[in-house]
C-alpha cells in the first residue's frame, strides 16, 4: 500500500486516492520534487493551481512550478527573477555587439563599394517587457 502512494501523499502522510491531483506529476521515486514545491507554495496552493488548469496543461505547470521553487530555494532573494535579469543583460550585450559588428560591416562595405547583403537587425527593446524594476503592479486586476 505504501509503495503506491505518490510523493505528495507520502510527504503529507495520507492515503493516496485514485484521483489524487498530485500523483501524475509527483511520482513516488522523486520526493525532492514535491518537497521543493511544498516548501515554496504549500501543498494546498499547488493543488488549487493544478485543479484550475485543464488536465493536458498540468504536467507543464507542475514542471514550471518545480523549476521556480528550485530556483527560489537556491536563491532565496531573487529566485528565478535573477535568471530573467541575467538573460535580459545578456540580450542587451548581444544586441550591442551585433550593432557594433553590423556597423563594421557597413563601414567595410562603404570602403570597398560592396553592397551590404545583411540588413541591420531591428533592435527593439525586448527587455523592457521583462523589466522587474518598472513593472506596474496596479494594472493587474485580481479576481
Amino acid at each position, binding site marked *: 500500500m505504501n509503495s503506491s502512494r505518490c510523493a505528495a501523499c507520502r510527504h503529507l502522510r495520507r492515503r493516496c486516492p485514485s484521483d489524487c491531483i498530485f500523483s*501524475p506529476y509527483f*511520482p513516488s521515486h522523486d520526493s525532492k*520534487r514535491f518537497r521543493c514545491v511544498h516548501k*515554496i*507554495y*504549500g501543498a494546498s*496552493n499547488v493543488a488549487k*493551481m493544478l485543479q*484550475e*488548469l485543464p*488536465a*493536458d*496543461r*498540468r*504536467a*507543464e505547470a*507542475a*514542471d*514550471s*512550478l*518545480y*523549476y*521556480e521553487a*528550485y*530556483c*527560489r530555494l*537556491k536563491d*532565496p*532573494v*531573487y*529566485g*528565478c*527573477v535573477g*535568471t*530573467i535579469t*541575467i*538573460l*535580459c543583460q*545578456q*540580450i542587451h*550585450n*548581444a544586441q550591442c*555587439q*551585433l550593432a557594433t*559588428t*553590423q556597423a*563594421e*560591416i557597413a563601414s*567595410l562595405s562603404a570602403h*570597398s563599394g*560592396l553592397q551590404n547583403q*545583411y540588413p541591420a*537587425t531591428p533592435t527593439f527593446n*525586448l527587455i523592457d517587457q*521583462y523589466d*522587474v524594476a518598472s513593472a506596474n*503592479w*496596479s494594472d*493587474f486586476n*485580481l479576481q
Partner: protein
Amino acid sequence: MGGGPCASCKLLRRRCSKDCVFAPYFPPDEPHKFAMVHKVFGASNVSKMLQEVPVHQRADAVSSLVYEANARMRDPVYGCVGAISYLQNEISRLQMQLAVAEAEVLVCMDQMQMPQPQSDHEKCLLSASSDNVSLCDFQNYRSFNNHHTIQDPLKRESIWY
C-alpha cells in the same frame, strides 16, 4: 503603526503588530501586491521566506516574489518560465546572427585583402556572453527541464522548444 494596518494584516484581518514582518514591504495603499503573493505562495510561506533572508535583502526578495506571483497569475501554466524560455531562445537567435555577421566581416576583409583579425577578437565577438554574468547550471531552464520533466501522455508539444 501610525498609518494603520499593513496590506497583509488588513487582508488577513488581524492586528498589525509593530514588528510585523510584512509591514515594511506591503503598505496599505498597495493591497494588490500582497493579495497576489498570498494567492500564489500563501502568507505563511511568504513570512517564512522573508524571515530566512537578511533584513537588508528583504525588499528585493519581496519585489521578486511579487514579480513571480504576477507572472504566475497572468500565465498559470508557465509563470516566469515562459519569459525565461523566450529570453533563452532570443539569446540563441542573437548569437547566431552575431556569428553570421562576424563571418561577413571576415569575408569583407578577405575581399579587401585586409589582414585577418586576431583570433581572440574573433572569439570575443562570437561569444555574446563572454563579458556577462553567466547562468548557473540550475538557472538554464532547457537543461533543467531535460533532467526533470514528467512524462505525461496528455502533454502536448511544448512551446519551450
